[in-house]
């Protein structure tokens, strides 16, 4: 049975991943088949909250003709909004003072006024929490998981991961050739704060010498031993892949990552700890630390290299195009079957729907005994443990 839905909207929450347009295409084509109208909201929810910022309006009409050639295109026609949060919108009040205001009720009212009956939102871990709060306040929504780190819980595969993986693997291959030519050990940092899938799978694909991931605390002595062993056999170079969230084993030489502790002690009554400060790591810090550590332990020249945010760019792979089209069309199917507050997930071989709450406060991390870990070990790649 087809519902009486007439108009739906599509938007993005969070940062960019390759090939977001594929999801739009999937949703628009599927909606069109049902005779529904689809619009895109620009830049997260900004298109609704700040329509005046956009010369052509904050909403974009999406037709099959518009999206026809989009699925494989890079970029995102709707824009993204890495820090858009309708519950904390920065504003200047009548007294010229800056403040953060909760505009969530207003947002829901404006969505209603635009006669948008449901929103398909493509979200990462953070935007998922915000969307869930909107859903609890009455927004009818279905979300699509996206993440270049593949760390969204409840799904086997987040949109964007496969494209990032292919790019990172290709770059690692090049790094290895560069290391070979320079006769050095390349230490390459890739995205992965909580989950090491990108480092693990890409590192495995290029047969790196070591892969360090957040799930397995590392001991650089073990990595150095592996590199020395290979050097003894005549290998003149090395390749180590590090996820940005990788941590040394507790008790081992803890890296000095604190900023000025005197100021902290002075200003933050609760922040006067004995080390172990969690500061926001600058991109590249882990690569630099590991490279230095390995150089010290092996007496071989190393160089750190950061791929970091580069993995977010580029065109989608065929796998991601299929997944994006499937997720977009699947989200429409969920709305058609009167579902709301759900996330579409890939649990091979099926696309399924799970309540959004199932993915909140969780990350899909690499289990210690997963097949990937076992294969990596079998290939002789050190995991630093």
């Amino acid at each position, binding site marked *: 049975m087809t519902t009486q839905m007439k108009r739906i909207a599509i938007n993005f929450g969070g940062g960019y991943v390759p090939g977001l347009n594929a999801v739009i295409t999937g949703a628009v084509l599927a909606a069109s088949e049902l005779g529904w109208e689809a619009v895109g909201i620009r830049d997260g929810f900004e298109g609704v909250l700040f329509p005046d910022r956009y010369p052509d309006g904050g909403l974009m009409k999406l037709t099959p003709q518009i999206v026809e050639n989009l699925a494989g295109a890079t970029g995102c026609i709707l824009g993204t909004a890495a820090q858009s949060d309708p519950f904390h919108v920065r504003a200047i009040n009548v007294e010229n003072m800056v403040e953060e205001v909760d505009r969530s009720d207003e947002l829901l009212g404006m969505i209603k006024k635009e006669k948008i009956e449901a929103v398909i939102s493509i979200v990462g871990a953070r935007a998922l929490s915000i969307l869930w709060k909107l859903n609890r306040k009455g927004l009818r929504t279905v979300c699509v998981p996206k993440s270049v780190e593949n760390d969204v819980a409840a799904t086997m595969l987040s949109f964007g991961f496969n494209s990032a993986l292919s790019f990172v693997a290709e770059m690692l291959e090049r790094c290895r050739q560069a290391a070979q030519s320079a006769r050095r050990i390349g230490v390459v940092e890739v995205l992965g704060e909580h989950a090491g899938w990108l480092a693990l799978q890409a590192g495995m694909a290029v047969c790196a010498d070591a892969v360090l991931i957040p799930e397995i605390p590392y001991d650089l002595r073990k990595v150095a031993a592996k590199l020395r062993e290979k050097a003894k056999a005549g290998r003149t170079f090395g390749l180590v892949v590090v996820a940005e969230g990788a941590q040394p084993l507790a008790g081992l030489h803890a890296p000095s990552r604190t900023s000025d502790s005197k100021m902290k002690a002075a200003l*933050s009554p609760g922040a006067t700890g004995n080390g172990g400060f969690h500061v926001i790591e600058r991109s590249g810090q882990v690569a630099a630390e590991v490279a230095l550590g390995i150089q010290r332990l092996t007496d071989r020249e190393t160089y750190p290299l950061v791929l970091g945010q580069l993995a977010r760019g580029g065109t989608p792979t065929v796998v991601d195009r299929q997944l994006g089209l499937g997720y977009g069309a699947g989200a429409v199917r969920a709305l058609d079957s009167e579902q709301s507050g759900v996330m579409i997930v890939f649990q091979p071989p099926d696309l399924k729907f799970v309540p959004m709450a199932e993915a909140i*406060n969780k990350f899909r991390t690499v289990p210690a005994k997963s097949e990937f870990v076992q294969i990596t070990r079998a290939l002789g790649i050190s995991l630093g443990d």
Partner: protein
Amino acid sequence: MENQLVHPKAPTGLVLNIQHFCTHDGPGIRTTVFLKGCSLRCKWCSNPESIRPTPELAYNPGKCIGEKQCGYCLKNVCPESAIYVVGSGDRADDKVRVNWDLCTNCGKCVPVCPTNALYLFGQEMTVGQVLDEVEQDSPFYRESGGGMTLSGGECQLQPDFAAALLAGAHERGINTAIETASNVPWDFMAKVLPHVDTVLHDIKLTDPERHKKWTGADNARIRANLKRAYETFPDKKFIARTPLIPGVNDDEEHVRATLAFIKPYKNVVDYELLPYMRFGEGKYGFLGRIYEMQDFNPPTPETLKRLRAIIDEAFGRSGKPARE
């Protein structure tokens, strides 16, 4: 006369911290009282915990001893389910995390945390409580010519409380100063300034558009307020200050424009440059926020020297000539 301006119903205010033995917040050795709440959002802010006008949760994972050893905060304490652990429990890292998008800063998790990894920034204090603590250091103030400084956040956003604190300090014979960005209604300043001996006020940028870009609001009201303050209180000491941010205002143009603004007023006795130090970085992490200035480096000693020489020259001091 002074006390008539103090609102009698302002017995409490939201205090972030009371810091003893400060030497950079006015003359002599001072005790600085940080009030919570700010009307600007400078991207380089080194006290991000002072920005919001309400108490807020912070979390220091360095102090968390983990789910296995403790885990009290995970046992139905948070009404929003904002506290969680990553992974399945077999990870070495079993420290809790805060979902900042769900947290409402209610503070219910704070009392159950035995290591103070979870804590609240900002507590309601009475004027008496603050002054009693400030007065403990009074021998140092006398020796050094110091006193109490109100800082923030923007201390003038709690005008009644600030005025009561400053007036109370005067009653106890304590010299007073404030650190302010002056982006508040003039009424607030009219309440606070009569009780201040030294006003340390920022001039962050002189161009209105650039001011808005980097601090969140333009500087029209700040300039109007400052001019009015200089004129209304000719006997008070004003010291202009610029937090020197590389690539934002660490140039001669800014320094000269600021000098042009302050020099007509004889009661603006000095202009100080405060080099950006990346102090607040760690605290952004504790609050679950993003520090946008993380790739900036402090200004070089050469830049500082060159810019300070311009100021020395303007104030007729015999500073060493600027190095070309």
